[in-house]
């Protein structure tokens, strides 16, 4: 159902109602202070929202600012509610929906350990080269590859590696920025 919106430029404007869950990437600028991550995570668990991926790191040391990048799923109404609830937290400076605001770059880093001999080992190395993964550790029976890419790229690589003696995977979670010259 579409509700015809008025002419106002209100920041909290109507969106289409939809019951279809979508995946959105939110970028949240917060004060880097004790407990801030617990506040964000507690909000998600307490209100029953999903977290698919979450990364956090200080990005502006002098201003004590950290950026939290959250990938979450929900109906458009739930996504808006998540953003508004995040906005209520006192240490939160800004919340931007990178999925909605247009073009953004999303990258993740993965370390992938494979073990094997013979053809499996050769195939693993060949695939790693095809994906432009770096070999950061090697023994006679194993490799650790480092791969940076979109989460989908990494999913694809990891899936292929299961055929080549995959042992374990470590992923950083998503880092994302909007394209263009302006910051959030």
């Amino acid at each position, binding site marked *: 159902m579409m*509700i015809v919106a008025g002419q*106002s430029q*209100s920041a909290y404007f109507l969106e289409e109602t939809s019951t279809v869950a979508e995946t959105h990437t939110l970028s949240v600028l917060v004060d880097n202070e004790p407990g801030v991550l617990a506040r964000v995570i507690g909000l998600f668990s307490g209100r029953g929202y999903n977290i698919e991926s979450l990364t956090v790191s200080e990005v502006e040391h002098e201003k004590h600012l950290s950026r939290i990048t959250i990938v979450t799923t929900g109906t458009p109404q739930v996504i808006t509610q998540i953003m508004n609830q995040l906005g*209520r937290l006192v240490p939160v400076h800004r919340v931007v929906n990178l999925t909605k605001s247009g073009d953004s770059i999303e990258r993740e880093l993965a370390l992938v350990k494979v073990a094997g001999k013979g053809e499996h080992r050769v195939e693993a190395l060949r695939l790693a080269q095809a994906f432009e993964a770096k070999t950061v550790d090697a023994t006679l029976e194993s490799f650790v590859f480092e791969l940076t890419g979109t989460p989908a790229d990494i999913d694809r690589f990891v899936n292929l590696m299961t055929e080549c003696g995959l042992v374990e995977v470590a992923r950083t979670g998503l880092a994302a920025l909007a394209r263009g010259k302006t910051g959030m």
Partner: protein
Amino acid sequence: MTRQMTGAEMVIQAFIDQGVDTIFGYPGGAVLPIYDEIFQQDKINHILVRHEQGAGHAAEGYARSTGKPGVVLVTSGPGATNMVTALTDALMDSIPLVCITGQVPTHLIGTDGFQECDTVGITRPCTKHNWLVQKIEDLPKILHEAFRIATTGRPGPVVVDIPKNIQFQTGTYVNHKDQAQTQYKPRVKGDDTAIREAVALMAAAKKPVLYTGGGVVNAGPAASRLLREFVKLSGFPITSTLMGLGAYPASGPNWLGMLGMHGTYEANLAMHDCDVMVCIGARFDDRITGRIDAFSPNSKKIHIDIDPSSINKNVRADIPIVGDVAYVLEDMIKVWKQTQPVQDKAALNAWWQQIAVWKAKKCLAYRKHSDVIMPQYAIERLYQLTKGHDTYITTEVGQHQMWAAQYFGFEEPNRWMTSGGLGTMGYGLPAALGVQIAHPDALVIDIAGDASVQMNIQEMATAIQYEAPIKVFILNNQYMGMVRQWQQLLHGNRLSHSYTEAMPDFVKLAEAYGGVGIKAERPDELDDAINEMIAVKRPVIFDCRVANLANCFPMIPSGKAHNEMLLGDASDDEIDTAIGASGKMLV
């Protein structure tokens, strides 16, 4: 002003600089330095409660009846955990509380020290914000920011957890009152275009209704004044949530009574059938909306709220306006006066006639008895006999609370203190204490139930100690009445543990505490007993024995729409089948 002082002194100095005159608290090991400072000064009045939860609710009552923040001081560990219910209550009802908790010294944090608990961790989800003070240099900023955050925007509780060694340390105190220490800055002024659109929509309305809530009361006395002006200007009918009672006077010509699960027939039907709904400082709570997909299906909705997250949370707003109710109402009135809209008088008259038909149902009518006091009658008499007094009402939670909301008329804001969002049994008695401390000469009545009142009965001792002449008016039906009513509605009248077999003698209990006990059992002795209660200038427990099995009507059963209300003359068969399978899942 800059001065060297200890952390404990800073706490007291910040209170003084913030204009605090009263705090509620309970001492313990981790706050002894602050208590030592309290001992050595006479600017701050400390009220010693009997249980920390009581301090929290007393501070809530103080805050709601004065518009000032309530201040609480408790110790670490159990002192802090006992505050959790009151903090959650204040968060749900948007009550400004500043709670100072003691903490074990910093070098013991994390060692499971005696009376240590993770106070900031436990209270994170039940406060607007909280802090663990880690350096003495941070303390003055945090204390003043705590007051700013608690009282501005959507008000709420905050906790400042201060380790004992920091209370002893000396540092530089600066008065940071009203100086922002974080980027927190709530938006108070509504979007101008949205306000103009809202006025245009309201002006063209044929079947409008104003639906107001606790946000109007929280926005201060100006908001209630502006609301009354706007009702006069527009001529719109007005209803309110439980939390908003008093913002518009119950004797006002446009008043429909409370809405929601136990609201009036006319208020709920007006909400269901309206074409323009103006929600002012309310949040479309489930007690208000009933079945959400059948909620006011044909209306355009204007939603004014200071909290952006309230908008489109439960019900979609056609015109959302984020801002302080007082600011937005002021602008709306300005625009209305500028544009001088021509209203559809014929349609509005027809709407009022329809409302009159609903009113004629007399949904609050009940059968009176000559030998047993009906609970509704008790509230009606209490209201009539206290009319000329400077009266404040608090309640516990349950049937008595709903009867108080239905049968007591509130003419002014800040006169009605009740636990709306959290529904905390045991709220009313300590809240009444807090109100009485703030208004020593007023008539402060806790309308209570026999079950709820026992949850914080110990605060009677506090009332005696401070000569706070609160009146605890118990509608005693021997049951947890609302639980029993729901068991009748939902569970085949199997009254599982809702009957209180061992009840104290409330008259003797009052006397044991040093107060006055009064009992009324028959309708013909009620007026004299109430008058006696009013005349006594000491704490009173009034044991009003009422009909045991009375139900609270009207009622929108869970999972039903506004136009599917049960009225007071509902038969037992109707009650038995009132709630469907899906409604049984709801609370």
